[in-house]
C-alpha cells in the first residue's frame, strides 16, 4: 500500500512556497482565451429576447418578423404561449444571426403579447409582502423568556442585508457547435466535468456526445455550475443553423437580472446577557428572499451556536425577481453580519470593547482556541487595543471606528480523479477534469505533482479544463484545492512507485528504499547511489507510465490529505464623514486558517479578493428593484456599484500557517475568507458613528438617517 501522506512541512520544496501563478502572464497580457474569446470560423451570434414583465402569461408570440431579417439563421421560442413568467428578464426567445447587431435587431422584431399579472419585487418591509411570506417554524432551545427576564443587560436591533448579484466580469454564456456526432461546448463554467452531462440532459442526448473545454473563466462565485437554458438554446440554434458555432453570452443587464443572486436577509434580533459581557439569550425573527423560490436561511446565531437560550423564527418571502444561486459561502456572510452586528451592539450597550465580548464568549463556539488565537493576532495587526474607543466617546466630523466579523466553513475536498503520466523522455503530464476559476488551481496542482516527483515546476505540464480528462468535482463549497491536491498527490505517488520498480533492479536497491529528489532517483540514506530523473525514465522502455489518483470524500479524512473546518476572523477600521455619511475603508485585516496551505501567495491573493468583495457588499452593492415596473433599475455597472481601487483601503492578510494547522491536511479557502468582512466593516462604522446603521450597504443616505434617528431619539 502506497504511502500518500504529505511530506513533513520542513522538507517541502514547492508546496507551502510563495509561487506566482503560472498563468499570470497569459492573463495579464491578454493571451489567455476565455470562452467568450472563442471566435470560431463561421461563428454566429445569439441574443435572448427577455420578458419586460415581472409576472405575466405569454399569450402569443410571433417570430416571423425576426425570421424575415437577412442574416438571421435561426429563431427559437423558449417561453411559448401559456407560459407563466415569474420574473422580468425571463428568456422568451432566442435568435442567432451572422452578426450580433442583426441578432439584436431580430430579437427586437419578435412580437410577444403578454397578460400582465400582479407582481411583488420588494421584501424589506415584511408587513407589506402579504401571502408571499411563508414561515419556516420556530426553533427553541433552553428558556429564552427566562433568560431575557433575568438578564442584566439586553439589546434589540434591526439588521438587513439586501439581495446582491454575482456580477461576473465575464457574463454567463458559451460558444457551442452542434457537430455530426458530437457537440463542442465552450462554456464559462465552474464545473468542467459535470456541465457537459447537464447540457446533454437538457438536449436529451447521451452525455458522451458533449465535449467541454474551458481553460479560463472570468468569475463565477457560485453562479456558474449548470449548462443553463441559454446554453441549451445556443446548442439548438447551432443545430438549426447547420452546426455553425453559436456564441451566446448574456449582456450586462441580463447578467445582473437573471444569472443569479445572493438572497437578502433581514432580522430583528435580541441579545440578553450579563454586564461582564457573557451572552445568555438570543431571539431572532428573520426573513429573506432570493426570488420566486423564497430565500436562504442564515444559520443563526452564527458561530456562537451554543448561546444557552435561543428562539429563532424565520420567514421565506417569494418575489418576482431573478432566482438565487450559490454566492461565495451561501448564507454565511448574511449570518455573520446579523450575528456579529447584534453582539457588537450588545457590547456597546454594556460599554465594553466588542473585542473583549467576542473573546469572553468563545466557549459558545465550536473552535474556541483557534478563534482566540486569531482574534489576538488580528488585534495585533490592526493595533486594536491602542486604537479602540467606545463610539459614545468619539468627537469631530471625521471619526474612525473598529469592527469584528467572524467565520466558519467546511471546505473538505470533493471527489476528484487525476491521471499522471511519466513519459520515457522524462516529461510529466497531469490530466484532471478540474477548472481554474481564478484561484490558481493550475499552479497548485503543478506544485503538488512536482513536489511529489522531486522535480522542478517547469518539468510538469498540467492539463485541466476539459471533460476528456478524469472527472473532478465542480468548484463550489471550497472543495477544489483539497480534492485536486489529494488526487494529484496519489496519482504522482502511484506513478513514481511504478518508476521506482523499473529502476530498482539496475540500482541494486529495493524500490521502497528509493526516493525522488532534486530531479534524481536516490537511495534513501545514500545520496551517492543515484541516477538522474531522465536516466531513470529511460529505463521504463517505450511505454509511458500512467497512473490514476483518486480523492474519495468518504475516506479522505482518514487518509489525512484533506479535511474540513476552516475558521477566520476579520477586523476593519473605517473612517466616517459625519456630515456627509460617506464611509471609507482604512484597513481590513483577515486572519484565516485553512489547514495545509499549498501556496501562501495565491492563498493571500484569494483572501484579498474576498476582502474586496466584502468592501463592495458592505459599502455599495445592492440590487435595486422598481415596484411599479417590476424590473431591476441598476442592472449595469454604473449604479450597481462595486469598489474601485481608491475605495478598497489597505488589505492585510494573515494566513494561519502553523504546524498544528498544517497537520490537519488541506482545507478549502474560497468561501471562509468571504464571510466576515461585511460584519467587520458594518461594525466598524457603528463604532465610528456611535449608532448602528441597520442596513448595509452603508450608503450616505442610510448613515445620515441613522444619525438623524439618534438625534431624534
Amino acid at each position, binding site marked *: 500500500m502506497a504511502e500518500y501522506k504529505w511530506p513533513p512541512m520542513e522538507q517541502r520544496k514547492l508546496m507551502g512556497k510563495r509561487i506566482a501563478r503560472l498563468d499570470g502572464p497569459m492573463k495579464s497580457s491578454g493571451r489567455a482565451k476565455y470562452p467568450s474569446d472563442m471566435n470560431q470560423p463561421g461563428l454566429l451570434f445569439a441574443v435572448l429576447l427577455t420578458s419586460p414583465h415581472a409576472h405575466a402569461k405569454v399569450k402569443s408570440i410571433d417570430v416571423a418578423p425576426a425570421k424575415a431579417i437577412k442574416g438571421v439563421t435561426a429563431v427559437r421560442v423558449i417561453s411559448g404561449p401559456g407560459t407563466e413568467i415569474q420574473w422580468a428578464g425571463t428568456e422568451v426567445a432566442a435568435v442567432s444571426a451572422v452578426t450580433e447587431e442583426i441578432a439584436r435587431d431580430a430579437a427586437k422584431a419578435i412580437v410577444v403579447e403578454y397578460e400582465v399579472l400582479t407582481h411583488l419585487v420588494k421584501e424589506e418591509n415584511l408587513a407589506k409582502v402579504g401571502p408571499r411570506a411563508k414561515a419556516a417554524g420556530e426553533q427553541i432551545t433552553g428558556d429564552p423568556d427566562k433568560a431575557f427576564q433575568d438578564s442584566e443587560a439586553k439589546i434589540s436591533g434591526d439588521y438587513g442585508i439586501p439581495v446582491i448579484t454575482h456580477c461576473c466580469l465575464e457574463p454567463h454564456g458559451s460558444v457551442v457547435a452542434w457537430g455530426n456526432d458530437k457537440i463542442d461546448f465552450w462554456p464559462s463554467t465552474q464545473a468542467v466535468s459535470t456541465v457537459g452531462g447537464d447540457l446533454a440532459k437538457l438536449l436529451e442526448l447521451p452525455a458522451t456526445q458533449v465535449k467541454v473545454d474551458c481553460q479560463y473563466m472570468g468569475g463565477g462565485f457560485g453562479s456558474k455550475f449548470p449548462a443553463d437554458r441559454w446554453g441549451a438554446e445556443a446548442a439548438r440554434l447551432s443545430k438549426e443553423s447547420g452546426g455553425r458555432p453559436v456564441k451566446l453570452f448574456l449582456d450586462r443587464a441580463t447578467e445582473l437580472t437573471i444569472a443569479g443572486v445572493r438572497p437578502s436577509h433581514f432580522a430583528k434580533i435580541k441579545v440578553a446577557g450579563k454586564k461582564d459581557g457573557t451572552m445568555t439569550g438570543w431571539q431572532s425573527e428573520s426573513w429573506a428572499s432570493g426570488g420566486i423560490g423564497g430565500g436562504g436561511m442564515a444559520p443563526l446565531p452564527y458561530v456562537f451556536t451554543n448561546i444557552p437560550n435561543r428562539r429563532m423564527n424565520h420567514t421565506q418571502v417569494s418575489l418576482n425577481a431573478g432566482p438565487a444561486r450559490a454566492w461565495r459561502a451561501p448564507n454565511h456572510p448574511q449570518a455573520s453580519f446579523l450575528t456579529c452586528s447584534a453582539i457588537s451592539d450588545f457590547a456597546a450597550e454594556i460599554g465594553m470593547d466588542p473585542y473583549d465580548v467576542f473573546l469572553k464568549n468563545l466557549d459558545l463556539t465550536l473552535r474556541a482556541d483557534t478563534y482566540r488565537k486569531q482574534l489576538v493576532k488580528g488585534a495585533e495587526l490592526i493595533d486594536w487595543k491602542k486604537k479602540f474607543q467606545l463610539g459614545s466617546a468619539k468627537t469631530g*466630523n471625521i471619526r474612525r471606528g473598529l469592527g469584528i466579523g467572524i467565520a466558519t466553513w467546511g471546505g473538505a475536498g470533493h471527489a476528484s480523479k487525476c491521471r499522471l503520466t511519466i513519459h520515457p523522455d522524462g516529461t510529466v503530464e497531469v490530466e484532471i477534469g478540474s477548472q481554474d476559476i481564478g484561484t490558481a488551481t493550475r499552479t497548485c496542482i503543478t506544485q503538488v505533482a512536482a513536489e511529489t516527483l522531486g522535480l522542478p515546476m517547469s518539468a510538469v505540464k498540467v492539463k485541466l479544463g476539459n471533460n476528456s480528462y478524469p472527472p473532478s468535482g465542480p468548484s463550489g463549497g471550497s472543495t477544489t484545492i483539497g480534492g485536486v491536491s489529494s488526487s494529484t498527490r496519489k496519482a504522482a505517488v502511484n506513478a513514481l512507485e511504478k518508476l521506482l520498480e523499473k529502476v530498482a533492479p539496475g540500482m541494486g536497491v529495493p524500490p521502497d528504499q528509493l526516493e525522488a529528489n532534486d530531479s534524481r532517483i536516490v537511495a534513501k540514506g545514500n545520496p551517492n547511489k543515484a541516477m538522474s530523473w531522465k536516466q531513470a525514465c529511460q529505463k521504463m522502455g517505450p511505454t509511458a507510465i500512467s497512473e490514476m489518483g483518486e480523492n474519495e470524500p468518504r475516506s479522505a479524512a482518514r487518509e489525512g490529505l484533506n479535511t474540513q473546518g476552516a475558521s477566520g476572523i476579520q477586523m476593519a477600521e473605517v473612517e466616517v464623514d459625519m*456630515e456627509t*455619511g*460617506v464611509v471609507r475603508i482604512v484597513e481590513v485585516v483577515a486572519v484565516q486558517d485553512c489547514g495545509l496551505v499549498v501556496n501562501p501567495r495565491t492563498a493571500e491573493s484569494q483572501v484579498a479578493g474576498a476582502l474586496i468583495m466584502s468592501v463592495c457588499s458592505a459599502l455599495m452593492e445592492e440590487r*435595486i428593484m422598481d415596484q*411599479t415596473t417590476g424590473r431591476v433599475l441598476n442592472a449595469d455597472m454604473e449604479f450597481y456599484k462595486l469598489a474601485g481601487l481608491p475605495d478598497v483601503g489597505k488589505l492585510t492578510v494573515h494566513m494561519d500557517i502553523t504546524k498544528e494547522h498544517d497537520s490537519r491536511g488541506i482545507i478549502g479557502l474560497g468561501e471562509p475568507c468571504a464571510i466576515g468582512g461585511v460584519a467587520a466593516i458594518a461594525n466598524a462604522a457603528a463604532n465610528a458613528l456611535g449608532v448602528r446603521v441597520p442596513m448595509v450597504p452603508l450608503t*450616505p443616505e442610510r448613515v445620515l438617517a441613522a444619525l438623524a434617528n439618534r438625534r431624534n431619539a
Partner: protein
Amino acid sequence: MVNFEYANPTTVKEALSLLTAGAEILAGGTDLLSLIKDDVHQPKRLVNIKGIKTLGGISKIGNNFRIGPTVTLDELASNPLIRGAFPALVQASLGITSPQIRNMGTVGGDLCQRPRCWYFRTGNGLLAKGLVENGENKYHAIFGTGAAHFVSASSLGPALMALGATLKIASPDGKTKDVPVSQFFKAPSAEGEREIALAANEIVTDILIPTPPTKNATYEVRHRQAVDWPLATASVSLRMSGSKVAAASITMGHVGPTPVRATEAEKMLIGQTITVDSAEKAGAMAVMGAKPLSQNAYKMQLAKVAVKRALLTAAGVKTV
C-alpha cells in the same frame, strides 16, 4: 442599435450643414454611444466635430478665457491657465475620477450629456411620469417643482455658472448667439422637450469665462471614491474686497434638473468673512427652497455640506 451615417466635417459651417433632422453631434462619445447602444437615442447620422480645429484650444482673448468645446476634460484640468484662474473647473473635472472618461470626454459634451436617471436610461422617457415620484428616487432632484425630477448630469455646468461663463452658439442660418450658462440648462415640462438651450441643429463653439480674479472652488460629495456620479456638488466664486466678500456666486449641481443657484445665500455673504459659521449658514440657506422626494431628503444635507465646504475651500479654510 439602428444603423446610421457617419460624417467627419472639418469646419463649423460644414458641420452645421450636416446637422439635418435626426443627426446628432459626436465629440468624445462617452455618453452618446451608450445612449445609442441602449436604444435611447436612434440617430440617423453622427456628425463628428473632433476634426474641427477651431473648436479646440484654451486661450485668453480680451476680457475672457476661451475654452473650445472639444477640449477634453483632461486637457482642461491640466491646462496652466485654467489651473491658475479656475480651481473650481479643475476640481469639477477631477471629480470625474476615470482617466479614460477624462481623456475622451469633452467640455462641450459634459454640458450637453443626457441625464443619468435610471428610468430615462431604460426607455421610460426623461420625465418618466409617475415612476420617479412613486419609485426609486434617491438619486433624483430635490429642487424644482415641475414635472422634471432628473438631475442635470453636468460636472462643469455648475462651476461655469458660478464663474459667470457664457456659451457662443452657432446656428445653421450663419448667425451666432451668446447664451449665459445660467440660461443654458432647462427643466422640460413635457416629454420631448430638450433639457438644454441648444437646438439639434446648433453647435456650441466657444465657452467664455470672464477674467476678473475670483476665489473659486468646487466641492463634490460622492458615494464611491472611484468613478461615480456626484450625489451633490457646489461651485462657488467669490470676488473679495480685502478679507470680505464683495460678490458671491454659488451654484449647486446634481440636485435639480438644472444647476441650482443659491441667490439668498449669495446675498447673505456680501460683506462677510468666510468662516466655518458663515459658510455653514450659507449652506443652510442654499437648501431652504428644496422639496425632496420620498427617498432623497438626505441630499439636502449633502448639498448644504457641499456649499459650506466649497466656500471654505475657495477661501483657503480647512473644510473638515
